[in-house]
Each structure stands twice: as structure tokens, then as C-alpha cells.
């Protein structure tokens, strides 16, 4: 609203002037709900919460600037034009004018979203930050069946598949994958690209259910349209960064046999040579520029130059994490049996430096290859067994990836129930409950790092400095505290011993002085104990109550809410502990029987 004209009854300032409700917005933009929804999704406009909801709590409020942002965008006109155009087509079809309808369909106005992508994400990092939802939705649609009724076109499903494979290929190629988690809902992957942690979910490779009620597919498809564009541009940028042409041209034979990921990796390999050349030219350029800079820079600033060189050097180097990931499955050859989820493993194993093949057409090597070290099997029994390789269940790969060590395979052998699969996204200690298997893994990890195998419960006495150990990640915090206490005790005892020795040396009467000292000490101790003794919990409660008394009401509310949250968390942990106890006791009794 321009400032010079204010209609009667319209507020000049404050929330009422800055926000309008949803229905008002619709009227203002002269759009219907569907078009508005589309605009909001494309433009990334969301309702905002005014401090004072002048039209009541049940309304949704949009900021006037957001609305203006929609109104001034050409996309609004484009969408309107498109809707009128579709009306023309419908009319032609209704009049059985097939010719005209065909012509019209051919000349349909295209709506391009690239401008909007750039507008919403002016920097590449912004796009990466918001990539979680696009990836999840694209992966979901890649697994959905096409349906005419719900207007899920085959073309789009294929596009989604293509985009997801391109993304996965990049991640695997650059070894950016960090964590994988198989959940009931699907497989979660977490990658780290340009410092952004990107987590996405891929559904299990089953026939997906398309629920009819509760889901409006229009919304999903509109989101998907934007996400497809976004992901394509992101892929382009990423491929560009490793000097690979985008969109990739794939081997049609491999594509047909649904091994697109492998096809993509082949494509990368094929393209790697020119990229090296480019790199070489780039480095030459860099040197040239450096030389120029050297001329320009005054000679008394060698530090700056050094930094420049350093920076150039750093760019080429991969960070520690990537290196670690790259070498996890190095020199290992995997073979996937027919029944294992091929897509996921074909993605994960190369991402961690392994070589993988599968049973089927276009596989790089067959099952009979003697150099295979691990065969991944997910069936109750294995018929023919090669002695040169180990047979493991797929979970082993994922657990290895999450722990970043090669786990012993005994627990994951064919036909066994594998150990619990733990989420890599949980900070066990912050959560307050550490599952058994996490402890085992931690010990194994420590062992792998130090090449020693301390048994649990043995050799703790040797651990001198808890701080050091903690730094090394040997033991948990609780254990550290225990150790510290133990150490303190030892120190006091030692000190006492030294004192006594000293006194003896000085020739003082040992018994009296020492006992006196002891008495004093014990008295002090007793006093302090006594002070704190009567009804310890009561006193601590009292103290808590009393400090709560003087809090302001707002703070008290916050405090109580936080306390409640903590208690809930604790109750959850307690429940887990209780269940565990029960399970253990049941196991014991069953063993006895």
C-alpha cells in the first residue's frame, strides 16, 4: 500500500498494517486457492506470526511484503497465461477439434523455475542447506509407481530416478557420504557437502503404497516440480565442480538393466582424464597469477604470500574425514547377491572406497572372481561357499560405515540375527542411555586405533590419567570421573604416607601428632558431614525451593518447563533401563531352565 493513500479504516502502522490474513491475500492477488498455493510453493512464501493477531488466533497471516513479493513476480502472470491456455486446449478437445488441440499442446508455454531457484537461494550454500527436503521427496517419487489417476507421470518418475542417481553418483564419487541408517521408514543417508550436513531418506525398494485419503497429490507434485529444478541445478554445479559434463550421457545397456549408478560411475571414469587436464591448466594459471602477485606485493610481506600459497594448497587437499571415508573399504572387493538391496549398497560401498559387483547383467566381475573378499548375502543359508571370501549380511556394511572401522564379521554371518543396528545420529551420552552394542563398538574402535585389545573390566587400574584417556576417547565421562576420584584417593593416601614419613624423620612422636591430625581432620569431616547429614534430600529440596521462590514468574515457568522436559527424558531412559533389566532376567531364567 503506498503511503500517500490509505483507505478509511486501514491502519497506519503496527501489526494490522503489516500483516493480512490469507483470505485477504487471495482477494488482493486475485487468485484462487490452488494458484496461491502454487505461488507460495514456488516462491517459498510462508505465513508469519504477527505479535498481535488482530483477526484472531484461527487466521493465517501473511506479511504484506511477502504478498507484494508474489504480486510483482512475473511467475504470477505466467501461471495465469498457462491456465488460460489449458482452457483453450480443453475447449478444443471438447469440440473434438483434435488437430487444434494437438497444435496447442505442442506450443504450450513453458514455465521455467530457474530464476526462482536463484532468487530463493542466491548462494550455492543456501541451496545445499535446504536440500534435505528436495532430496527426500525426489527419492520418494523415484520409488513411487506412476499413476494416471493421481497424475504422477512416468516421465517425472523417471526424471526423479535420474536426478537421485546423479546425486548419489556425485556423493559416492567424491566420498562425501558420512552416515547411513536403516530405519523402518527407509534408509537415511547423511552426506557432508561444502560443510553442510545433508540428510535424506530413501524408501525401501518395495512397491510403495499410494494412500488416497489424507494426501493431496497436487501439493506434492508442485513441490516436486520446484525440487526437480533445484536438484538439477545443484547437480549441474556439483558436476561442474569436478569437471564432469552435465547432464551425463549413460551407457544405454547399463541403464536398461537398472544399474544407472554403475553407469554413472563409468561415466565419471571416462570423464576423469579431461578433468585432470583442466586441473593442470588451472594449476598453471594459479602459478602464473601467483607470480604476478609476487611482483605486485611488496617484498617485505612474505607472510601474506605464504598464506596465499597455503590457501591454494589447501583447496586441493581433501579434509580428514573424506580421506578416512575414502580408505575404509580400500582394497576390498564386494559381491552382492541377488536378494540384497542393490541400489543402496552400490551407492554406499563405492562411496567408502570399495569395489562392488552384483549378480546380473553388466556386472563388472562375476561371483566366481577369486579376488572377492566379501560377499553380501541376505538369506537364511548359503549354498555354495567360496572359502576365500567372507559372507556377511548387509547390515555389516552399514555398521562398518557408521563406526568407520571394519567390524568383525562373526556376528553378521549368514543366517544369524545380526546385532542391533544403532542410529549414528544419536549422541548416546547426551541422551543418557548407551545401548550395549554401542559400548562394544566403542571398545572395538579404541582397540582398532591403538592396536590393542583391552578386555572390558580389565586393565582399568593401569589407566593413569583419565583426562588423557577421555581425549583419546577410551572411556566415557562417568568412567573418567570415577577414575579421577580413585586417583585423588590414591593421592591423599600417598600424601598421608609421605607426611608420616616426614614426621618420623623429624623424630616427632608419631602416634600423638598423627592421631591429633587425624582427629582434626576427622572432626572437620564429621562436621561437614553432620551439617549436610540431616535429611539430605530434604535439604537439597529446600534449597531448590528457596531459590525458586525468588524467580520471576516468567523465569519460573521456563525453569519448570525445562525441568519437565528433563524429567521426561529421564523417564524414557529409566523405562529403557527397566526393560533391559527385565529382558536380562528373563534370559537368565531361561538359561537356568
Amino acid at each position: 500500500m503506498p503511503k500517500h493513500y490509505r483507505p478509511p479504516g486501514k491502519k497506519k502502522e503496527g501489526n494490522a498494517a503489516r500483516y493480512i490474513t490469507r483470505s485477504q491475500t487471495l482477494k488482493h492477488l486475485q487468485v484462487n486457492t490452488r494458484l496461491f498455493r502454487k505461488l507460495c510453493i514456488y516462491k517459498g512464501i510462508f505465513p508469519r506470526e504477527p505479535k498481535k493477531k488482530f483477526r484472531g488466533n484461527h487466521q493465517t497471516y501473511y506479511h504484506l511484503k511477502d504478498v507484494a513479493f508474489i504480486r510483482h513476480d512475473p511467475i504470477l502472470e505466467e501461471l495465469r497465461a498457462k491456465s488460460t491456455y489449458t482452457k483453450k486446449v480443453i475447449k478444443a478437445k471438447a469440440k473434438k477439434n483434435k488437430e487444434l488441440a494437438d497444435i496447442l499442446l505442442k506450443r504450450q508455454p513453458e514455465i521455467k523455475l530457474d530464476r526462482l531457484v536463484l532468487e530463493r537461494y542466491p548462494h550455492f550454500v543456501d541451496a545445499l542447506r535446504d536440500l534435505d527436503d528436495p532430496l527426500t521427496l525426489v527419492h520418494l517419487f523415484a520409488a513411487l509407481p506412476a499413476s494416471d489417476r493421481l497424475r504422477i507421470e512416468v516421465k517425472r518418475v523417471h526424471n526423479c530416478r535420474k536426478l537421485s542417481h546423479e546425486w548419489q553418483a556425485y556423493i559416492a564419487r567424491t566420498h562425501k557420504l558420512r552416515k547411513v541408517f536403516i530405519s523402518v521408514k527407509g534408509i537415511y543417508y547423511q552426506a557432508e557437502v561444502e560443510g553442510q550436513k545433508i540428510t535424506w531418506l530413501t524408501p525401501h525398494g518395495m512397491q510403495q503404497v499410494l494412500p488416497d485419503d489424507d494426501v493431496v497429490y497436487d501439493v506434492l507434485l508442485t513441490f516436486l516440480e520446484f525440487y526437480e529444478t533445484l536438484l538439477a541445478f545443484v547437480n549441474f554445479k556439483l558436476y561442474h565442480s569436478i569437471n564432469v559434463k552435465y547432464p551425463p550421457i549413460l551407457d544405454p545397456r547399463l541403464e536398461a538393466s537398472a544399474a544407472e549408478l554403475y553407469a554413472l560411475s563409468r561415466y565419471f571414469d571416462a570423464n576423469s582424464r579431461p578433468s585432470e587436464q583442466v586441473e593442470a591448466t588451472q594449476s598453471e594459471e594459479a602459478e602464473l597469477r601467483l607470480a604476478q602477485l609476487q611482483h605486485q606485493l611488496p617484498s617485505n610481506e612474505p607472510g601474506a604470500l605464504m598464506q596465499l600459497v597455503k590457501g591454494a594448497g589447501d583447496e586441493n587437499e581433501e579434509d580428514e574425514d573424506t580421506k578416512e571415508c575414502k580408505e575404509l573399504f580400500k582394497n576390498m572387493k564386494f559381491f552382492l547377491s541377488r536378494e540384497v538391496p542393490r541400489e543402496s549398497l552400490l551407492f554406499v560401498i563405492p562411496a567408502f572406497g570399495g569395489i562392488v559387483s552384483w549378480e546380473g547383467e553388466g556386472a563388472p566381475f562375476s561371483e566366481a572372481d577369486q579376488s572377492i573378499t566379501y560377499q553380501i548375502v541376505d538369506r537364511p543359508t548359503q549354498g555354495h561357499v567360496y572359502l576365500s571370501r567372507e559372507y556377511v549380511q548387509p547390515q555389516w556394511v552399514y555398521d562398518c560405515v557408521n563406526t568407520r572401522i571394519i567390524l568383525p564379521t562373526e556376528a553378521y554371518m549368514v543366517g544369524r540375527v545380526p546385532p542391533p543396528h544403532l542410529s549414528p545420529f544419536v549422541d548416546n551420552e547426551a541422551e543418557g542411555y548407551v545401548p550395549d552394542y554401542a559400548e562394544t563398538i566403542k571398545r572395538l574402535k579404541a582397540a582398532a586405533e591403538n592396536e590393542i585389545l583391552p578386555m572390558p573390566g580389565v586393565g582399568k587400574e593401569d589407566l593413569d590419567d583419565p583426562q588423557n584417556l577421555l581425549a583419546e576417547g577410551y572411556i566415557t565421562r562417568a568412567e573418567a570421573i570415577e577414575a579421577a576420584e580413585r586417583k585423588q584417593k590414591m593421592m591423599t593416601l600417598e600424601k598421608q604416607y609421605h607426611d608420616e614419613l616426614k614426621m618420623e624423620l623429624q623424630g616427632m612422636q608419631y602416634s600423638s601428632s598423627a592421631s591429633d591430625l587425624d582427629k582434626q581432620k576427622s572432626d572437620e569431616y564429621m562436621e561437614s558431614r553432620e551439617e549436610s547429614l540431616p535429611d539430605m534430600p530434604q535439604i537439597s529440596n529446600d534449597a531448590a525451593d528457596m531459590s525458586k521462590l525468588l524467580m520471576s514468574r516468567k523465569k519460573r515457568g521456563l525453569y519448570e518447563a525445562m525441568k519437565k522436559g528433563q524429567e521426561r527424558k529421564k523417564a524414557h531412559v529409566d523405562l529403557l533401563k527397566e526393560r533391559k533389566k527385565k529382558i536380562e532376567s528373563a534370559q537368565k531364567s531361561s538359561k537356568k531352565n
Partner: protein
Amino acid sequence: MRAGKKVSAEVSSPKKKEKKNKNKQENEEKENEMANKTQLKKVQSDKQKQSSVKKHDEEGQKLQRGKERRKEEDLDNESESGSDSDESDYQDFSEDISGDYESLGQSDDGESESEGGQSKSSGDEVHGDNDDEDNVDDHHREDQSDGSEDHQGVEESDSSEDEVAPRNTIGDVPLEWYKDEKHIGYDISGKKINKKERQDKLASFLANVDDSKNWRKIYDEYNDEEVELTKEETRLIRRLLKGKAPHGDFDPYADYVDWFKYDDALHPLSNAPEPKRRFIPSKWESKKVVQYVRAIRKGLIKFDEPKEEKPQFYLLWGDDSSAAEKANRLAYIPAPKSKLPGHEESYNPSLEYIPTQEELNSYQLMYDEDRPKFIPKRFTSFRSIPAYENGVKESFERCMDLYLCPRVRKKRVNIDPETLKPKLPSRKDLKPYPTTCYLEYKGHKGAVMSISTEASGQWIASGSSDGTVRIWEVESGRCLKVWEIGEAVQSVVWNPSPELPVLAVAAGLDVLILNTGFGSEEEQKRVKELLRLEIPTAPDGIDNMASIVSWLQDERLEGIRLRHFKNVSSVEWHRRGDYLSTVMPAGESRAIIMHQLSKKLSHRIPFKLHGLPVSSVFHPTRSVFFISTKKNIRVYDLLKQKLIKKLETGLKEVSSIAIHPAGDNVIVGSREGKLCWFDMDLSSKPYRVLKCHPKDITNVAFHRSYPLFASCSDDCTAYVFHGMVYSDLNQNPLIVPLEILRGHTSSNGRGVLDCKFHPRQPWLFTAGADSVIRLFCH
């Protein structure tokens, strides 16, 4: 048709004649009738030529013989009918005469009936006559049809259709109108045509079987007769059904015959010479062509060739630094990322994450909102994981959240809740304060309602609900004196002045002023003098105080008894010890009374009371009086006799009030367990409200010299606070909770009933409902 009309006119004319001259002329009529008949015969024969002729077309000679026979019969009939008609006419006539000019309608009816009969008979005659003629015609016609069926049949049928008029004359009216009648309408002569008897089904079936031609018969509803269709007619109908022209020989696409011929004409139609433009190419067309060609060359017109494939994707974020220009929009708030899955969402979680059967059952009993959204499940191998049924739904919900949820940047408080607690000065620095129970004073049988310390701090007095007032030695816990009042004691107060060791005790309606017997002899003497009433009753007519309070000498207890008109709840001494105020909550406008001991006088306070009074207190240094009602506290100046201040507590029910020894701060305890600290210089609203007790606060107290105050409550606890008031006006009072004192037990739902500080030491006395008084020392 015309002939018919004529006939009818002729027919009607004799009727009129009949009506006019009804005498006789039967003969004439007869003649008329006969003429009519002959005319009719002719007409009918003309009309029915076609139908009847066609009917009898195919019949052979056998029929002809029959016809001859029928002719004879018809002739007989004719003679008979003629006689019949004569008779009927005669009858009519006689009736007319006898009826003496009956109504027209009736006579008409009769006539028409008779005429109907006539017509019938005449019809028959006609038929017979017709047959003769038909036969002749038939032969004649057959010849014709044989000869030229193609050409003349058409014309004939057309003409015949025009000629043949329906037997019925009702016109274009719905036939339903005649459904219930016996006749179907009227013939040309206006006679009723009676309905024929319809063939029943059996008969019609039989007829069908017998006669192979029966299917050609059509029932003409309008004329109530069966018509047999000829071959030609059926053919015609068939053609019509097919949508062709009705006659087979009609050519719908005949060549156009130009009727105008000018071949032989002398002059052409237009004499103009052929124009030139007929011989040269069109300029307009060439222009248009050139236009198109140019447009095509320029690329304005595009053919439907496949569009040039532009690279769909390009380096969108080519140079990141250039894209830094700010879009003119509000700050974008990125949507929160969805929660990362925990251990319980694993396909193979540890066993302890899986709820037991009982827990699963208990989920069923929960409300929908409380029920956990995700129930962990365990699958023993990767291959056994099914598709997740809520996958699409969950991503849809996420999408809805993304575009419909209002986004707000909220600061997430990720701090230890303990840091929220205010930083209090260490309690050790604020010592001394009462912490532990040092002594218990036992002896009362009932709940100790009130206690009071002597000004020197050597003695305490206590009043109990068992009707006794006791005096204890503080340090030893010895009970020194006991008074049996006889009624539950509400309040006990020592006189604040050390020279006047007197106790004021409120019990029931009375306030007793008792001599404790302490102090030197001189003091005792003065006290005794003071407590002796010179005049038994002080008559005071002006104030009418006698009805409210009466001063009595109590010989047994050696004191003064002030009898009030309502129960007294509390007593309070003035700091000099001469005045005392009593509060009777039920006393309405006379609820607070002030007594002067030296003059043995009572006054009503000169202020209007607002609300139910709870207690009244004197200011410790100035002549200011506090009256606390249930909601508010009013501060009055006694000298100027006016309201100074009104303190709004915001509490529901005030139970007690205490005043800081400096006089500018007030604490108020309430029945909802809240303690308000008022800084009267600051505002009339509480400076701080402490919600410390879960139950009613029964009493609050300030220490006289130490910066301490305490509250006691029915939850059997007493709180001790540090309450420092600074002389610097810029500094607000410092309040620090110090200690919670426990030890009393609850009885009858009441806990600690009173608390008082020792006047010199930082000690606190508490009086419990468990009939014990406790002393808490530092």
C-alpha cells in the same frame, strides 16, 4: 367434405321444421328422409371407394357370389329399416306431443338416437350399394393398376388421401375424452358412431392364425376400425422408416435441368468485354506471398519443426559473489530440518526399545494425541523389512508444514535450568538466623493459638485453645504461670513497654488484661493501680460505647475484663503500652475498637471500614494505624485522622500483617500461601510476592533488630527470610530465603499457628496446632 356439410345442413333443417310444425307432414318427412338417404349413399360411396375397393381387391369370384347374396339381404334390410324408421319417428312424434314440449336436449337426444339407428341401417344400405359399385370399380381399377402401376399409382394414392375423409368428425381432440363413452365420435351426419366390440385376445390370436394376412391389419383408433394395408402401403412405410423418400421412383438427386436457355438467343446476357484482370496474376495475392516469404526469411513465421534444444540446465551459481545483491524481500527463515531418527527407529533396534505387550495395550487406552506416533518394531533381517505405509503421508505432511506453517525465528534456550535461578548471596554470610530446633515448650492440651514475647526476651506467653494462658521462661522452658480463662484463647500479647508487665488476652467475647506479676515492687504497685477499675462501668452516652464494650473487674484473674458484643479475634498494643486495639471480624462498622488503659475508655475508630477487617496494627514509631481487610490494607494517620495510603495486595484473603521496625515496609501473608512485601515508599503494589507455602499462611513476623522475617503456615513449616532494608532510598530491599523450619506436626489440618521472633536474639518461636511451642536457634 363440402357435400357432407351440405348434407348435414339438410339433415338439420328438417329437424327444425319438425320442431316448428310438429303436427304432421310425416309423408313429407319421409320423403325428405329418403332423399337424405340417397344423397348419403352417393357421398359415402364416393368417400369409401378406395378403402372398400382395396379391401375387396384380392377376393375372387367366390366373394362376388357372396356379394350378390348380400345385396338381396340388404334390400330386405332396407325395407325393414324404412318401416323401423317410420315407426320410430312416429313414436318420437307421439312422445313429443305427450311430453308437451319437453326440453330441447331431450327431444334432441331422442331424435339423435333414432337417427343413429337410421344411419346405421342406412350405412348398411350404403355398404350394400357400394359393393355393387365397388365391384364395378374394382374391375376397372385392377385393369388400371395392372397396366400402369408405376406411374399412376402414385398420383392416385395422393389424390385419394386428400379425398378420403375420416369417418369420425370429432376433429383433433384427444381420444381419451371418448374413452368412457359408448361412441367414438360422430359421423358426417352428426350421428354417433358406436364403438365396436373389441376382439378379445383369443379371438385375435385365432384370427392371426387363420388369416395369414392378418399382420397387415392396423387398428385405426380414430375411426374405430381395422384397416388392412396394401403391399404398396407397407413398402411405403418401410421406405419412410429407412428415411428415404416415400416413393421408390422418386430421385432426390436428379440432374438440374436448366430451364433458361440462351443458346439460340440473339443477345448475350451481359455485353461487357471480358476484363483484363481475368488474364493477369493477382497483385494482392503476390503481395501477400511476398509478405509471407519475408516473414519466413526473417523468422517471424516458424514451422512446426522441432524446437532448438537449449541446454536446460546451466551453471546457475556461477559466480557466487555477484549474486550477493539483496532481493527486496523479508528475511528468509529456513525451515527447521526434520528430526533425525533415533535408535528406536532402526529396523533392528536393541530389544529394550521395543515396547512390551502390556505397554502396547496401554497405548490403546490412551488418547490419540498422547499415543506415541511411532512404535518401534524389530525385523531380524534386511530382506524382511516391508514398505513403510506412511511414507507418502509423512512427506505430504512435511510439505504442508513447509508452506502452511508460520515460521518464527525463536531463540532456543539451550541452557542448564539451574542457571535460571537468581544468584543469591551465600546463606553463610547472612548468619545468624534460626536454623535448628533448640527447645520445645510442652504443657498445653490444645492447639497453641498465639504466643508473645516479653520486651526483655526473658519470658514468653502463650494462649491455647484449651482455655489456658501460660508464661514460660525462654531459656529453661519452665512454665511459670498458668491462667485458666475458660474459653479458647485467640490472641495473647505482652505490653510492649517494659515498665508495664501486662498481658492482653483475647478469648471469646472478652479481652482480658492480666497482671503477670513481674517487675519490681514499684512497677507491681503501678500495675495493680492501673488494673483497678474506679467506676465499675464508664457511662458514655455520647458514643454509646456501653452497647459495644463494657469494662469489668475480674476478681478471680486479678485483671480487667473488656466484654465486647462480638467475638474478638486479635488484640494489638500501641508501642507506648497505653492503647490497645481489638478486632471483631463480625462487628461490621464497629469491628475495630480502641481502648485506653489509663483512662479506662473505649473509642470507635474515626475511619470508615471497607470490607471485612482481619487485623489492625500500630506503626512501630509514628502514630499511624494499619487496618487490613481481606483484600487491601489501609494506612491511616491517627493524628490527622485521615487515610494515608491504600496498599493493594492483589491477594484473595489476607490473613496476617507485620510491619518492619523502621516502619516503611510491610509484609502480608495470605490464605493462598503468598507472602507480599510492600515497600511503602516505592508503590502501593507489592514489591515482591513470594509463593512459598502450599497452604494458608497463618502468621508473619519481623525481627525487631536483625534483618529477618518469618512466615508460618498450615503446612507445618515456617520460612525464615533475610529481609534487609537499606537506609539508602535508591536501594531496594534485599530478600533472601534462608531456611525452612520443620518439626511441627499437623493436627486437624492445621500446622503452625503463630511465630514470633525473640526481641534480642535471632531466635524464632513457633506455636503449633500440636500443642507444642518450639524455639529455633541459630
